[in-house]
């Protein structure tokens, strides 16, 4: 028991990152990274969505509120959407989510957006590495979405 304790204490901080990946490109890109045995940090928790256009801004907010340290959203490159225009519509939403959350004081690097195609297994690994590094540098998500005592007047 004691040994396990020691192990967790020495363990490097590993962020939990919710990754919303579109079924047709980024999810396949992640798959390709796996098939190609490309190493990347095991920090992401993949959530497969049909299209980046399917991503409700509330998903991102809820993930942060539920304790994710970061969120990664990835879809097909603009012009390559399986549903023709899903990621074009999503792009405007993404820009606004990022801007809004940054405005309320969430660190910019906590929420990341990227386009990764099904052929970009290597790049997917790079994106996850980059995002993990930046979120790790920020540490746990203790900012605007964290309430310690659960009370309304905690400040």
């Amino acid at each position, binding site marked *: 028991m004691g040994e396990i304790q020691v192990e967790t204490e020495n363990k490097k901080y590993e962020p939990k990152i919710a990754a919303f990946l579109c079924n047709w490109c980024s999810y396949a890109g992640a798959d390709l990274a796996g098939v190609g045995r490309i190493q990347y940090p095991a920090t992401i928790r993949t959530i497969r969505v049909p299209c980046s256009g399917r991503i409700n801004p509330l998903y991102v*907010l809820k993930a942060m509120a539920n304790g994710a340290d970061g969120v990664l959203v990835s879809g097909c490159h603009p012009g390559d959407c399986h549903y023709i225009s899903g990621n074009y519509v999503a*792009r405007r939403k993404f820009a606004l989510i990022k801007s809004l959350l940054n405005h309320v004081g969430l660190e910019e690097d906590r929420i990341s957006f990227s386009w990764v195609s099904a052929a970009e297994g290597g790049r997917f690994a790079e994106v996850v590495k980059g995002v993990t590094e930046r979120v790790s540098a920020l540490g746990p998500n203790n900012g605007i979405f964290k309430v310690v005592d659960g009370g309304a007047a905690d400040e």
Partner: protein
Amino acid sequence: MNKIINDIRETARQLLAEGKVDVVIGYEKGSLPLKATPCFVHSSEGVDSLIWDETCENNLATYVAKTPGKKAIVAKGCDSRALAVLLQENQIVRDDLYIIGVSCHGVIDQRKIGAEVGEILEASISDGKISVKGMEGDKEYLFTEVKDATCQTCRYPNPVMEDLHIGDTIEVSQEAAAFADVEALESKSDSERQEYFKEQMSKCIRCYACRNACPLCYCQECFVDCNSPRWLTGGVNRAENLLFQAGRVMHLAGRCVDCGACSRACPQGVDIRALNRKMTKDVYVMYNHESGISEEGKPALNEYSANDPEQFLVKE
């Protein structure tokens, strides 16, 4: 009795008598001083309760879709913009709507007065002067001193669409939209902004008055009431409050007409507009879009262009 009120009443009387509309949505004197309340006139006998002054702060577009039958509505600039968005989104039928347009000089920010004189007991308005008798003292204000923050930067005091215009129109400069309030916040550091919004979100009691006052919050089931999935757990703390406020603001992105109804409805004085204005600015800067300035067109998030900016992407 000023001419505008007279004309509104006459128009309402005519419309109702001729059977052109079933109901006229306007304002009547509220039970509290400096507070007008929305009023639904169904017959020509009731038209004399209609008023028009600087206390007509509600956005009446909120009630249009919920009111059955053909209706006439007294609309300020922001009301008409909200109507335009509702039309763009097919929420209302133009043929069922008769818009009585009135140019608006702005509405009174009661919170500002209340902060100085305490609870407002009596008040009267004449010639741009407001004399107030409050719990903690009396004071006289110039209207420009207590104009609501929204109205100070208003670019559309004249209705953007109307069937009839009452009173004069107001000259407005055709300069690009100014966002000094947003820029002031943006120039602060992340942690300062975080502190500011933590404070604001701690004040919110999630009464949803902002949502109910908003003309564009018309979802049959709001995400906060949704049980599956349960976006909000029901606790009132500032993280949940932020989830609500940010979620609502995202729903309004590219649609909000900046009427300020949410802020005025808020019993806690939460700076809701700080979020809405940020989105309005982003949409304006990034997509060169202003919501509800014509019946045609679509809300910004229903459209896209191949060249939309992509600064938000990661560098890899």
